[in-house]
């Protein structure tokens, strides 16, 4: 099985498990609005990831490689920036811990924000003159 196809299968399986979890949680009681918003955001990001993985799978079928020297350099560079900004994000989350109800919320927001920071860094480096 190709790399892009494996990525697609894993993403669809994860989204299915995630949806099942939300459904079960919903049956346990009412979900707060903030949490609902976070779940919606995670679901949307998962759908975007599935779309990207599907696109990559199609391109792989056309004979294009999944990664090349340019995409790998973008990944390395954005990975570096995402790491640095995530460190600051965790620091600010720690400093503002009194605003959150419990540790789970802080960890959940932190993980989600790390993903978002990674995505934003990748898009920024790709769009805004990579060489500079």
């Amino acid at each position, binding site marked *: 099985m190709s790399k892009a196809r494996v990525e697609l299968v894993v993403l669809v399986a994860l989204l299915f498990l995630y949806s099942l979890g939300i459904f079960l949680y919903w049956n346990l009681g009412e979900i707060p609005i903030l949490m609902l918003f976070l779940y919606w955001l995670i679901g949307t990001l998962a759908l975007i990831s599935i779309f990207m993985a599907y696109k990559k799978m199609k391109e792989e079928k056309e004979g294009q*490689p999944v990664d090349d020297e340019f995409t790998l350099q973008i990944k390395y560079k954005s990975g570096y920036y995402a790491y640095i900004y995530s460190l600051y994000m965790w620091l600010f989350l720690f400093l503002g811990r009194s605003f959150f109800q419990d540790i789970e919320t802080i960890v959940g927001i932190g993980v989600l924000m790390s993903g978002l920071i990674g995505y934003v860094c990748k898009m920024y480096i790709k769009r805004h003159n990579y060489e500079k």
Partner: protein
Amino acid sequence: MKNRIREFRAVQKLTQIELAKKVGVRRETIVFLEGDKYNPSLQLAYKIARVFNMSIEEIFILEDDIG
């Protein structure tokens, strides 16, 4: 670094995907190369030059040498 990839690709009637396949990269890499937003590795520059049957200097121009 400027390049004349778009120009030579048009002469040889190659699409971006066809050129990408010939040199073993993704189409988006060709898009960024043609937009002068990415400087290729020496290896990729050689492969591109080989496809066009030209020297690297004919395809890639150092900005200091322009004008």
